[in-house]
């Protein structure tokens, strides 16, 4: 049985539990609570140059300002000056050298934030500037990498290329992307008794902050408590990159003994924090006359910036998505993370997969153009079929790729739209339209297997109300709503009886970051584990309360059911107890009403030395079709229509998941079109404000935007058969880029565009095509 299309997601599903709080402004973000008495403010002194020897720091002038309490440098760090999460190559405060613009060199701690920033400008740095390495090309030339060069290989690509009927090659080039979460990085640190600290941080990764702060300050981890209520957006940008700012606030609080807060301005945040990795990926593809791919090789080269951050993991995911949705017999995937003097590139929705997919989709698009075939048909011919095996050895099972592609072709009216667009383009000289399709297969799990674990703590109180703590961070994806739903459904009570607490390292230990779209899967399962323990303890209590020995009903815990706020024995469902009655009785009988839950995803492992393994618990599949109009005079692109068919499983909350699809697509549309990071030749980011870095506005959203969810009865049995949703839809946005390419393409000529295809690059491509056309006219006239 194929995937069943499910029209318009159910809008009646329970809404955002914090929706009322957020829409009235009562919800608190870090920095919204009244400042505790005596709170100080931290400003960071960042390196003004991309590379150099740091010979000295003179804080005299800054310290002379009344109200400046301290200026702290590497020397003031009591513990280890090290905050590298994966590789220990990242100092908290520069020591001896600086490696990117904005690298923290010192902090100024003062009575108010404006004063702290003024004083930060007074701190003099003696730096001997050295020429920076900024490009992937230059880093490759110097062999400057983060981590080893990795490979995944299958078959005999060299032989396949040698004997193939056709071979094409190119370089897929994509730039970085600024996260532009609306809430900038921030942390408030409060000293507690016994030298302990409580940190309110805007982080996706509380445990990493606990780990790093304890190392930096030389404290045991139990002395560092990290609490997170919610984030004002993150998208990966607060997975590892919240850490330095939290550590600096903690350092200020620890050294002064007073509460201290660090809130980056927008300009600081854009200039100093990491972005999506830029990639230059040379590729080569071999294929036959029907467009069947015979061999593919790609050298995925990321610009990692100055320190490792999570670049090795991002690169790994690029490599594990390098073939996207296609079964290719002979494959060679090389990956290198290039070390340069830019701010460390970091996690961003998709985590390397978009760049890996971008290379193969660029190649497939060229194959179709070369053969003059329908690009959707070429893709269909190469799709994974049930049981095919990926280049790294994981079997592709239960996938709905073909269903999704067929369905998106049907819903977007692919064939007819292509004809209409061709007709439009014949009539129009200064505006051209294009249409493109992008299928997606996205692997769910952390590729670092040990991260696939989660904990929870569930308390049931005497009145039957429930408090849930888990390890996921609420950042707009509404993981709290999903987990509240899981708990409420399992206990058979209403969601209004379940309160989801802040994420706190004292209630749940050793959390993994909320990332890789795994937050609800892992933490929902951990919460469910705790709930089941409690229900197992409640069953004997309920069974004895429901038993009627005189009526022949012996107590049978196995027959106890929790549903609709009632507890009953399914052999005699007429008599029910309230959940509260059972809980009260259990308490009276000294039954433990709290439980700690745990979950570890079974069966995932990946050997990065050999490039083999089963890194993913399952795949999420789908496809998107996008139509655009490009103005050849201005270079402006309008996205006219989008159709997405996405595999969802049994959604825990369809309205939330629809919002994730819309949000991810529009974010990717920005990456593919207008979001241009502008650097100067010295490695400074010039597009450092909302006025110069242009994320999409409401006016950029396509008029026609159809999203259809596919259920997949063959799918894996994950949490209540739901599927991860955060990242996969980001990849659909690439169809925008390829639609622009199609609009600019002419027979025998495919545009050589770098992503993002902003107006400037589009006009360059138009000019290049124009001069080529003129040349060919001239040469035709000459012959």
């Amino acid at each position, binding site marked *: 049985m194929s995937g069943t299309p499910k029209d318009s997601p159910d*809008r009646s599903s329970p*809404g*955002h539990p*914090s*929706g*009322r*709080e*957020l*829409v*009235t*402004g009562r*919800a608190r*973000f870090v*920095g*919204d*609570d009244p400042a505790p008495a005596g709170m100080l403010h931290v400003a960071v002194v960042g390196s003004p140059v991309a590379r150099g020897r740091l010979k000295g720091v003179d804080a005299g002038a800054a310290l002379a300002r009344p109200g400046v309490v301290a200026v702290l440098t590497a020397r003031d760090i009591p513990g280890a000056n090290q905050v590298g999460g994966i590789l220990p190559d990242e100092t908290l405060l520069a020591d001896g050298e600086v490696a990117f613009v904005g690298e923290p060199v010192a902090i100024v701690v003062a009575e108010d934030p404006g004063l702290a920033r003024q004083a930060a400008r007074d701190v003099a740095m003696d730096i001997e500037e050295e020429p920076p390495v900024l490009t992937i090309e230059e880093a490759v030339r110097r062999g400057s990498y983060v981590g080893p060069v990795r490979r995944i290989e299958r078959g005999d690509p060299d032989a396949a290329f040698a004997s193939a009927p056709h071979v094409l090659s190119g370089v897929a080039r994509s730039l970085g992307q600024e996260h*532009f*979460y*609306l*809430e900038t990085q921030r942390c408030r640190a409060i000293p507690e008794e016994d030298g302990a600290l409580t940190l309110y941080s805007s982080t996706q990764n509380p445990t990493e902050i606990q780990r790093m702060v304890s190392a930096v300050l030389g404290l045991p981890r139990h002395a560092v408590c990290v609490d997170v209520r*919610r984030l*004002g*957006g993150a*998208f990966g940008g607060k997975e590892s990159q919240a850490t330095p700012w939290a550590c600096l606030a903690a350092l200020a609080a620890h050294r002064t003994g007073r509460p201290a807060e660090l809130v980056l301005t*927008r*300009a600081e945040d854009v200039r100093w924090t990491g972005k999506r990795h830029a990639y230059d990926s040379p590729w080569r593809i071999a294929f036959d006359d029907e467009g069947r791919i015979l061999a593919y090789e790609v050298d995925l080269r990321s610009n990692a910036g100055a320190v490792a951050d999570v670049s090795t993991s991002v690169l790994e995911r690029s490599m594990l998505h390098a073939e996207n949705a296609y079964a290719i017999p002979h494959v060679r995937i090389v990956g290198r993370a290039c070390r340069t003097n830019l701010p460390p590139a970091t996690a961003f929705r998709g985590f390397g997969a978009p760049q890996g997919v971008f290379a193969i989709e660029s190649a497939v698009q060229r194959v179709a153009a070369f053969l003059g075939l329908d690009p959707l048909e070429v893709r269909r011919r190469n799709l994974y079929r049930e049981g095919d095996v990926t280049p790294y050895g994981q079997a592709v099972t239960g996938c709905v790729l073909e269903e999704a592609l067929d369905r998106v072709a049907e819903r977007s009216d692919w064939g007819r739209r292509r004809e209409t667009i061709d007709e439009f383009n014949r009539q129009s000289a*200064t505006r051209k339209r294009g249409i493109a399709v992008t299928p997606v297969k996205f692997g769910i799990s952390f590729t670092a297997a040990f991260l696939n674990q989660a904990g929870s703590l569930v308390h049931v109180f005497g009145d039957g109300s429930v408090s849930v703590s888990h390890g996921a961070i609420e950042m*707009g*994806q509404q993981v709290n709503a999903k987990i509240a739903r899981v708990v409420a459904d399992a206990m058979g009570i209403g969601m209004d009886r379940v309160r989801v607490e802040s994420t706190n390292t004292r209630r749940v230990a050793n959390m993994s970051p909320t990332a890789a779209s795994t937050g609800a899967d892992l933490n929902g399962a951990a919460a469910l584990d705790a709930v089941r323990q409690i229900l197992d303890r409640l069953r004997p209590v309920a069974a004895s309360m429901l038993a009627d020995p005189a009526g022949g009903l012996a107590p049978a815990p196995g027959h106890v059911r929790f549903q609709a706020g009632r507890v009953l024995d399914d052999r005699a469902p007429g008599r029910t107890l309230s959940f509260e009655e059972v809980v009260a009785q259990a308490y009276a009988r000294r039954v433990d009403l709290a439980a700690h839950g745990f979950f570890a995803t079974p069966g995932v492992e990946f050997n990065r030395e050999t490039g083999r393994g089963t890194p993913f618990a399952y795949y999420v599949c789908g496809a998107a079709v996008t139509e655009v109009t490009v103005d050849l*005079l*201005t*270079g402006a692109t309008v996205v006219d229509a989008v159709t997405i068919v996405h595999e969802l499983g049994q959604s825990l909350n369809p*309205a*939330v998941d*629809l*919002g994730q699809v*819309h*949000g991810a*697509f*529009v974010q990717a549309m920005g990456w593919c079109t*207008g979001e*241009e990071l*502008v650097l100067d030749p010295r490695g400074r980011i*010039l597009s450092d*404000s*909302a*006025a*110069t870095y*242009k*994320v*999409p*506005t*409401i*006016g*950029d*959203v396509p008029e026609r935007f159809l999203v259809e969810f596919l259920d997949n009865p063959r799918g894996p049995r994950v949490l209540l058969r739901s599927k991860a949703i955060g990242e996969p839809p980001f990849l659909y946005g690439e169809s925008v880029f390829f639609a622009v390419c199609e609009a600019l393409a002419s027979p025998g000529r495919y545009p050589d565009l770098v992503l993002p295809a902003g*107006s*400037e690059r589009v*006009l*360059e491509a138009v000019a290049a095509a124009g001069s080529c056309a003129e040349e060919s006219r001239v040469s035709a006239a000459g012959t």
Partner: protein
Amino acid sequence: MEKVRFFLNGALREIEARPDTTLLDLLRGPLGLPGTREGCGEGDCGACTVVVGEPDGDRVRYRPVASCLLLAPTVHGRHVITIEGLADGDILHPVQQALVDSNAIQCGFCTPGVAMSLFALFLDDPDPDAEALRAALEGNLCRCTGYVAIRDAGAALAGALRARALDPATLRPPFLAGVEAAQRQAGPGPTFAVEAPGCRYVAPRSADEVTALLGRHAGQATILGGGTDVVVAMRNRGARPALLLDVSRVDGLRRVDVGDDEVRVGAAACLEDLGRAVRDALPVLAAAIRVMGSRQVRSRATLAGNLANASPVADTVPVLMALGARVRLEGPAGGREVPLDRFFRAYKETERRPDEWITEVVIPRSGDAFVHFEKVGRRRELDIAAVNSCAMLRMDVAGRVVQARIAFGGAAPTAVLSRRAGEALAGRPFTAEAAREAGRAAAADVSPIGDVRGGAAFRHALVENLVVAHWRAWAGQRAAAPGGHEA
């Protein structure tokens, strides 16, 4: 220090504040209302949107503004409504309820700003169409939702009002009427001034007072219209004006007089009001204003400020140059008018002397000439142009160009009226080929540089292409006109 007296969510407040403090900092700090949030600090993201009510004739106008760009004394006598004032106890305001019902909230950081923009829109126009919704929300960045659900929320609310499923009276918080009565009773008040060490703010009620103050403090005074540029300079570029001379309270300075031949624009008229006032009289100016900044910025920014700033990419400048507008300057030595194409001397330098101020801009109406504006940036809305251009062409009965004035911004240290482009078109029929030639000719009149908004080659290409884009618009108009045909 003189206290700033204003209404906040229905209640009269008096607060001591330095004149260089922003309303946002006051709200989040001493006023204890942290629901208004800072996302960018320069009026480009909408997270800090609040609604300000002020009397306008016999009614009170409510406008969405970026509180990060609003200096504390400028709210004196006005009514500031923040997200905390929107709900009536536990009953959400209809815009809030719509956002919740449409699942338009993800992380929620931008949500208060979105709600305030919708609130301002629905107070102003309870029956907005899709275009009005878009225009009201384009200044609110949201990085989570992809805007679809936000758009749906606005449309659903409009639909409910249209279907009478919702009483339009519920759009007005209960405290509005009382404050409006109090504001009307209080009137505009006398000249208002606030002084603090190193910074003085004066808001005179008469033009003569402004001129006199300028005469006494020439060189130290910063003229404050809407403040959308002055405050950014203060917050982000370290500007420390000693005297802020707020001209927005001068009697009569906000008027826009639409005459048969000319439109006269008072220096304190905000762009939003101007755009609405000239929708029929000067549609090209209305079109240029529509793509400037956000509703929040347009509700404060003024035409005079846009000209006085002398930014080479100001969107109104090519329009006014093509139309042949004049700038009226007043100073202690008297008044004078300067044609706009002679107003800009160099990058960020104008003919205005330090003791002069712009009181009025006079714009000739274009009659039956063809006029068209084009703007290219990285994004369709809410962007500063890489290059902008306006063309005004008059044709004779035979379709030959009699007069062509084509101006460009972003292509030289000041906006440029291209003499060569005009000459290239004169006496010829307006064809694609002629437009392309005029574009090439215009390229010789400009000298673009590369910066964060685009490279020099890109700008050169745009100068050339935008003349063709003017032709395209003209041909489109002709084809659409009754009895017209494809050019």
